[in-house]
């Protein structure tokens, strides 16, 4: 597992804490989630806590997390769940109050859970639900089992559906794609480390956005407004550049990021966070034009949150991170904590002109399940109304499978989705 130092990635997070009184918590659930948390190593912050949760006492005692929550001893006697997620779910439901206490006063939750496991798959949706109920914004990063682990894969898909009902954004990290991440001759260990780096990159970008004073500043209110929906699908990617043309190089790398070219990843975003971190040489107009290009690439409307930070240590380097969501719907367990002035602030600091009528206003979160169908991401020429209706019905099932997008059913054969590229499922490394 990676020993990536989170401090290196957001060097001024300490001082950032003083800017606002937002509290964030990174929660690792189950074996995979806890080991991801340990890979991040960020227990030196006041505003970002980390919590390891498991039924398996051994996992917890090995963990470096500052807070630990064991549960379900009555059900498992301190051992694992053996992949049985119903068991783990029963266990956490019985100890909800402990969890509530852990989530008290937390504004931002990063949930890390391997959905193929019993604990991760069973408990993550419950954690997301309770976190939402207590008013937090929940981002989940979830490793997904390999396609060839057929029954685990099917279970993970079920859990993913469930988790998407509660979390604001869920970024699945399919193990199938691990191989595509590392270098040419990367070992399995290096590939896992790369996956862990993806997660820390996502979390650090969001943390910097919220906690640090930036060149183009965004605060928690923006983030909350942008993600206060149930996101059917998400996109998450990054790119880095160096030298004279660093911004453009970073954009090029972003568009080639393997995380953006996975079957479960949306190609367009109804809401998009762009975060650019770079050295002092970054020019305002160059930043604006890059942000505009990114907005166009992801067909994002006016709901773009754009943050840029100067980091002297970056030299002539630039990092771009994007997190977007589409197929937005009302989220369960309400917590509309955005103040009414949010929209104005958003417009004032967002460099992107809002040329479209506000789309989000029509799908604002409602407490009932009978609220309006969500808006359709990509307007379809055929019959927009029928299609949007369709999308609503099938939203949970619908995933981007490239050319086979918009088909409600998975093309299952022997437990594998044949519409997912064969090279991904068969673990063939493609070098681009």
């Amino acid at each position, binding site marked *: 597992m990676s020993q990536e130092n989170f401090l290196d990635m957001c060097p001024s997070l300490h001082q950032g804490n003083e800017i606002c009184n937002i509290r964030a918590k990174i929660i690792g659930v189950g074996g995979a989630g806890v080991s991801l948390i340990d890979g991040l190593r960020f227990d030196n912050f006041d505003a970002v806590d980390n919590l390891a949760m498991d039924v398996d006492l051994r996992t917890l005692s090995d963990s470096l997390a500052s807070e630990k929550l064991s549960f379900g001893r009555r059900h498992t006697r301190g051992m694992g769940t053996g992949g049985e997620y119903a068991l783990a779910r029963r266990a956490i439901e019985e100890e909800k109050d402990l969890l509530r206490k852990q989530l008290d006063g937390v504004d931002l939750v990063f949930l890390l859970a391997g959905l193929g496991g019993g604990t991760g798959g069973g408990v993550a949706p419950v954690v997301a639900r309770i976190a939402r109920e207590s008013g937090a914004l929940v981002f989940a990063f979830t490793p997904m089992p390999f396609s060839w682990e057929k029954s685990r894969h099917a279970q993970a898909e079920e859990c993913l559906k469930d988790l998407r009902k509660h979390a604001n954004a869920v970024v699945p990290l399919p193990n199938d794609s691990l191989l595509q991440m590392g270098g040419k001759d990367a070992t399995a260990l290096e590939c896992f480390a790369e996956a862990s780096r993806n997660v820390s990159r996502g979390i650090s970008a969001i943390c910097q956005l919220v906690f640090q004073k930036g060149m183009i500043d965004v605060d928690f209110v923006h983030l909350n407004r942008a993600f206060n929906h149930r996101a059917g699908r998400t996109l998450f990617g990054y790119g880095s550049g160096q030298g004279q043309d660093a911004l453009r190089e970073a954009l090029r790398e972003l568009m080639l990021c393997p995380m953006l070219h*996975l*079957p479960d990843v949306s190609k367009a975003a109804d809401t998009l966070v762009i975060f650019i971190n770079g050295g002092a040489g970054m020019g305002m107009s160059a930043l604006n034009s890059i942000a505009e290009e990114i907005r166009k690439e992801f067909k994002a409307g006016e709901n773009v949150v754009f943050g840029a930070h100067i980091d002297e240590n970056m030299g002539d380097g630039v990092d771009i991170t994007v997190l977007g969501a589409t197929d937005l719907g009302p989220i369960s367990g309400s917590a509309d904590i955005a103040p009414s002035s949010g929209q104005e602030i958003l417009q004032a600091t967002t460099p992107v002109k809002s040329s479209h009528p506000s789309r989000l206003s029509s799908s604002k979160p409602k407490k009932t399940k009978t609220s309006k169908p969500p808006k359709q991401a990509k307007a379809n020429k055929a019959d927009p109304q029928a299609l949007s209706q369709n999308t609503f019905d099938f939203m949970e099932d619908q995933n981007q499978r*490239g*050319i*086979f997008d918009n088909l409600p059913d998975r093309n299952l054969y022997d437990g594998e989705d044949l519409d997912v*590229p064969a090279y991904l499922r068969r673990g063939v490394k493609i070098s*681009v």
Partner: protein
Amino acid sequence: MSKIIGAVEIGTSHAKVLIGEVGENKRLSIVGMASRSNEGMRKGEIIDFRSVATCVHSAIEEAEKMSGTTIDSIYLAQTGTHLKGMVLRGSANVSSADRRVKPEDLQRAADEARRRQPPEGRSYVHHVRMPILLDGNPVEDPVGSIGQKVELIYWSIDGENKAIQKNLDVASSYSLDIDDLILSSVASSTLVAGPDLRRAGTLVIDLGAGVTDLALYRQGNLAYTGVISVGGDHVTGDLSMGLRILEPYAEELKLEYGKALPDEADSGEEVWIIGNKTIGDRKVTRKAITDIIHVRIVELFEIISKELGDLIDPNEMGGGVILTGGGSKLPGIEVVASKVLGVPVRKGVFPVGISPDIAHPENASVLGLLHYALEDHTLPGTPRKESSLLGKIGGLLGM
């Protein structure tokens, strides 16, 4: 007097129309043809009716204009994973006092075979007749022969009403009647696997854009039909995701540089994605292209092998495996197929006399429709009825 027949295949990548003229000597000449790229389908099924209908209608119009005639009815190819084939049997005792078989006996046996209804929500698409048995012995035409019992066997394909209805609606919204619905794989086989090959035992694999159609012949008769929902579009989709490029570019790379079999020679070779050196263009290795295609093609034939199981028996497949359809143009695909299936595989060859303009593997099933239409598929002794199909699909159309 000559007769005009129309053949329509609503394929996932293209809608194709052929108009044939059958002369008195039963010679077929193609007088009209059109092919239109189709956007409204995925994996052999219509997802955008209006777009498909417009596409098909404009293809028919073009073919009619070219031929200088109009068509009133068509033979329509059917595919899709919803189609399922099974054997239906029916028998009848010879009723006449002199024990000579009459056409009515055959009809009774046929009625009995087809009496078995498909499951709720499904209808028969195509009954392919197999040999007639007279007292257990296969005969071509038993009418007039002496015996006690005639038996008929059909390979019958049924499908979901909803999917079939959409196809019929495309035709009926252009005021066309349906002469017959014909399974795509059976149509293609008519063209690439002649009677000798079918007798020897042959598997025909039609690799389409949306789906792959299978038809296995043993001793001259159909022994299996199937549809696998993997086609050339999957190769394009894989390339698009693997090389991180837009689908139109992936499609072009596939056609230009695609190969089924990795080749040491091109490991270092790179090609441009767009090719006109515009901004954003970049190079990819040919190895990456081939690797992505290879793993998909291997998997496709592994699925075919799994689906057919014991039916792939080298002793019963003297005619080998024949590949046709657009996907069969992929260089090296027959080598990969042979390795996976363990039997000889070759690319299909069309009968002589088909104009080189249309003698392409992707036209196998639409051409096959015309050839199938020429063959007589009625029961011996019964006049060929033009509207025999109405009974079959009448329920669907609400007639």
